[in-house]
């Protein structure tokens, strides 16, 4: 692993995003910057963390002219990791609080899980697993009421799902240089560290 990789974690202006940085330090990555309003150009990897509401995060992203910078980052072939809300922000819109436009990097929308979940409590909180490539990755921490729904899933996508109350929802996606997860690797103990390690190695 190249430990000198320059990582930028986008701060939406509120909340605790230190956890993501803390996890990266734990796996030996040193060049980690939490960026609130500076330029995103010089980072090798961008992380959209999972703290805050969709609307609030998009407000901050727009205010700092980040839509174009994030899009350019992806176009240039550099890696991006979206976590929880960060995964949802990649979509075209979300119905959280009120209909809000997203980054529109991927075609799809974000819906409330209550459209699908009838018998179990929401938000979906706690450890659950992801089925991906016929394998099961367990003990990952989820905490969300909303899910991203992709419009066109083609062969360019590698997709993982999670089961809650009998409903299968999108919890992992990889397309070229974009990786996004609905769980929180930074809050999933050793299993989360393993995920981050693999992400930064490959």
């Amino acid at each position, binding site marked *: 692993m190249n430990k000198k990789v320059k990582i930028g974690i986008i701060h939406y202006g509120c*909340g605790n995003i230190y956890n993501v940085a803390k996890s990266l330090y734990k796996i030996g990555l040193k060049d980690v910057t939490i960026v609130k309003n500076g330029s995103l150009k010089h980072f090798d990897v961008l992380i959209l963390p999972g703290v805050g*509401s969709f609307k609030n995060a998009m407000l901050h992203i727009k205010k700092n002219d980040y839509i174009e910078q994030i899009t350019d980052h992806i176009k240039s072939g550099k890696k991006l990791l979206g976590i929880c809300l960060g995964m949802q922000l990649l979509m075209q819109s979300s119905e959280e609080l009120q209909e809000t436009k997203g980054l529109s990097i991927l075609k799809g929308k974000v819906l409330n899980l209550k459209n699908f979940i009838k018998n179990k*409590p929401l*938000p979906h909180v706690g450890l659950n697993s992801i089925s991906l490539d016929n394998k099961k990755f367990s003990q990952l921490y989820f905490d969300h009421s909303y899910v991203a729904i992709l419009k066109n899933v083609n062969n360019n996508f590698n997709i993982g799902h999670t089961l809650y109350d009998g409903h299968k929802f999108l919890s992992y996606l990889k397309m070229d240089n974009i990786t996004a997860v609905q769980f*929180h690797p930074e809050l*999933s*103990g*050793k299993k989360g560290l393993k995920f981050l390690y693999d992400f930064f190695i490959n």
Partner: protein
Amino acid sequence: MRYIARLDLKSDYLIKSIRYEGLRNLGKPEKYAKKYFESGTTEILLIDNVASLYRRDPSYDIIKKVSDNILVPLIFCGGLRTLKNVEKVFEAGSDKIALNTILFENKSLIKQVAEKFGQQSVLASIEAKKTKNGSWECYCYNGRERTQIDVIDWAQEVESLGVGEILLSSVDFDGTHLGFDIELAKNVVDAVNIPVVVSSGAGSIKDVKLLFEKINPSGVSVGSALHYKNLTINDLIKLRTRNE
């Protein structure tokens, strides 16, 4: 099944009380947090027992120290009165917050927090005490003051106000190691559609087992039984593995 190690604080020390009285100093909370994280707890709950009572700000420094030692979610509860308090608690390293006392003066804080940080980040902490007629009443100021509000009504109200979860404690069972108030937990779990974390009363792994056999709450929180090693995180892990 979520199992949450509960750390009750007074000033900078981990304490344990019985029925919210008679505090005992057990040492540094960050040491316990680190130990429970390394043993495999799925979450940690940090409660400042006296912040509301003394109208004092939460101990941001302790939150940071605890957070630095763990890689699982941290829930903070105690003395939160304003959105500013809440922001600083998140900045210090907490992932979620729980509100109790302030809600009986200002319910709108729930909405403010949810709009900025998302619904999943805010819990309502309910301190329940049984009444003579068999129902339960909400208490505030760390189990000291009555509110004359029914627990079930309140649970449904905070759900409609937009909290993501309920943390349910029992003033009668707190620190007693007599087992959970299962009747209380069942009534609250049945009344709402959001996750309920049940706290107060665990004396051994049998109590936790019974709780999950009788009802199925989202999680269980265990405090002094862990500190006194009457049960271990490993017992909880084994129980979960068996249930899955």
